[in-house]
């Protein structure tokens, strides 16, 4: 459902992505790991063109989003995104945060959007927070609302950009649990993460990136037990404190 071919990204002189090829199938849960500066987040941001790719093609449902005729706003309705810093809208309450895009972009009636929103709030375990403002929520709660907000657009795939990196340790689990449920339901997910346990237990594919390239694309267990490249071995040694 997503196909990336020869994706390059430059920031001025800096060559951040050096030819990414990747195919994502329906239902894939892909953990993307690698050292910082390896281009993981940039790649994710290119998939919905929040970052303009410099070269290459990205097909979403066979539509090339690099084609000038492509309406990126329509594509983005199918591609949800969850950010490291949540990015909830502080001047809107939780319910408004969730129904804003469905009502304004998809033109779904307010009543129907609210019903969906309450279902989603129940799903992320925050039914009692519908009328709270984001500044009254903890980090973990904010991120669960952000996931509900993304789900409200009924996306085909959700991009997670380090969803737990800005959280206090005791709040990481509540967010990962929600993501685990999503994975079980068959949601297609691309997750840039530093949570190795999560990558190993929940993802069905693991991508290791280094220096703007995908170095390994394999099963999580294979990767953790027997990484092929030296670079991956070195990385695992560091993050697993071996």
């Amino acid at each position, binding site marked *: 459902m997503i196909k990336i071919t020869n994706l390059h990204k430059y920031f001025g002189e800096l060559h951040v992505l050096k030819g990414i090829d990747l195919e994502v199938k329906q239902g894939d849960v892909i953990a993307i790991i690698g050292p910082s500066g390896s281009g993981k987040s940039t790649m994710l941001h290119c998939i919905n063109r929040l970052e303009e790719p410099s070269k290459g093609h990205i097909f979403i449902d066979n539509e090339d989003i690099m084609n000038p005729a492509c309406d990126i706003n329509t594509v983005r309705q199918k591609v949800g995104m969850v950010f490291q810093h949540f*990015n909830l809208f502080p001047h809107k309450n939780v319910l408004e945060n969730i129904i804003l*895009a469905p009502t304004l972009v998809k033109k779904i009636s307010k009543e129907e959007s609210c019903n969906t929103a309450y279902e989603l709030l129940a799903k992320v375990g925050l039914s009692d927070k519908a009328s709270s403002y984001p500044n009254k929520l903890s980090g973990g709660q904010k991120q669960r609302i952000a996931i509900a907000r993304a789900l409200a657009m009924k996306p085909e795939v959700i991009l997670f950009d380090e969803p737990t990196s800005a959280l206090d340790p005791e709040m990481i689990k509540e967010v990962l649990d929600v993501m685990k449920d999503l994975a079980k339901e068959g949601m297609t997910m691309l997750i840039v993460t530093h949570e190795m346990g999560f990558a190993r237990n929940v993802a069905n594919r693991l991508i290791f990136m280094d220096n703007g390239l995908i170095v390994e694309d394999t099963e999580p267990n294979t990767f953790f037990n027997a990484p092929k490249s030296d670079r991956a071995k070195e990385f695992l040694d560091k993050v697993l404190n071996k």
Partner: protein
Amino acid sequence: MDGYLGVLYHIFIKDERYMLIVNGLLFTLNVTFLAALIGIILGVILSLMTISDFKPFKNVKSDRLSYLRDFNPLTKLALIYITVIRGTPTVVQLFILFNLVFTGVLETSVFVIAVIGFGLNSAAYVAEIIRAGIQGLDKGQMEAARALGMSYGLSMRVIIIPQAVKKIMPALVSEFIVLFKETSVVGMIGGNDLTKAVREIAANSFRAAEPWILAALIYLLLTTLFTYFMRKVEKRLKESD
């Protein structure tokens, strides 16, 4: 009437001199409000120009002209305007407007020149306030809105501008207060504002201290009122956070 009250009577009441103050104050307030209106409208336009992403030459192939790719004529124009206005004194701008532009080309009343002059001046400051307000917002807000499929315009309207307005309100009100006080130089091009009226009273009554203290009190009273309203509005805005 005698004693000090007699002196005050002589200064302010005799020959209906208080009417100078009333008319002067009206002139000052009218110029301030109309100039503020121009300042806001033009300031919004200028600020949108400075943050716009309008790059008409971004597809230039030639390497020799590569600098044109990032050239944004709207931003450039707005920045030049802001630099010139903020880099020159208001009085000088008024004199230029008065002597070069208007008297030369067409006959216009001092009131209109003052409104236009202060309006053009204020716009540059308002533009900078708005630009800072919008650019000071977390970049993630725009990203989140766009990632949900909202267009640039819709994201600006529903997400960015409502948050920016809250942030810039206090700065806008203080710009309004600065504008209000700055109109006191309008007498130099012949405007009959509050300051000019007081100067006349002082000249006619041969007493300077009382008229000038009264002028200070009137300015102070009004700026305090504006500040009071600003605090109220600010509090209201905070509550909805």
